[in-house]
């Protein structure tokens, strides 16, 4: 965070972020009781969690006003993180393709 900051303004932002996080937590719980399909529930739930996480990172962790080297370091981390998350999904897709090919091979032509 830059050296010259208006602390009173910062504190007002912190309190606003805290209230937002609290409200979003209630929204997350409320949404989980909605009668929607699993993929829709997952999308909504993870979207709200991402918004909450961004609020914490940007304001509590001061990422909104940080040096470039931190952004570059985090960008690299995000790239590896996405690769890590994609691996199990790719494995799942590969399994399904394999099963499909197996069924095709055994079907009489």
């Amino acid at each position: 965070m830059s050296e010259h900051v208006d602390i009173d303004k910062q504190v007002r932002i912190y309190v606003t972020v805290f209230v937002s996080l609290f409200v979003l937590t209630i929204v997350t719980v409320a949404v989980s009781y909605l009668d929607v399909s699993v993929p829709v529930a997952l999308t909504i739930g993870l979207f709200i969690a991402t918004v909450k996480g961004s609020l914490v990172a940007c304001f509590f962790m001061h990422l909104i006003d940080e040096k470039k080297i931190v952004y570059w370091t985090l960008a690299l981390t995000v790239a590896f993180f996405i690769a890590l998350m994609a691996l199990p999904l790719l494995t799942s897709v590969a399994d399904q393709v394999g099963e499909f090919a197996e069924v095709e091979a055994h079907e009489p032509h």
Partner: protein
Amino acid sequence: MEIPYTVEAHPETGLNNGKIGIWLFLTSEVMLFGALFATFIMLRIGSDGNWAAMQAEAELNIPLATLNTAVLIASSLTMVMAWASLMRGQLGRFKLFGWLTVACGGIFLVIKYFEYTAKFEHHHYPESSTFLAIYFAMTGLHALHVIGGMAWNAYFTGPGSKLFHTNRQWLTDRVEHSGLFWHFVDLVWIFLFPVFYLL
């Protein structure tokens, strides 16, 4: 020998040693929890539709977990307020908010203790199901991070706060760095809560 760039920024990075160090540490933490989240995805996809049944059988306590989420969010506020107090030169308020942060961590762990013991009373152990195995692994690792963050904050709020009288900026920076770790722990819980309890 004096270690350079403990307070002043390094000309190459624009940051002091502590700040660059804590961010590098947090990136490694992202990959640690990332590996477990990837494991979670793999287990869920591979459960052949049994995930919801295992989740229901585990009988996780949503009201307690919601309360724990609120406690951790509150602790993040007290953490930044502790740092803001140091920026204003208010040692007394810094200590108040610092101890409140540690107390919130303690409340979180007590609630977690009640959650875990309720599971054990119903003979729900990590080996009971795939869901419980990853649940205990991830929430347990997170709880260890809460303990680490509490120890770190307790040191700077207690004996470490003597630095206020000799090098206030150094203490302020150190508290900002411990705060970054604490907020990261909060951030991880923000994702653990819906993933295990709600979805």
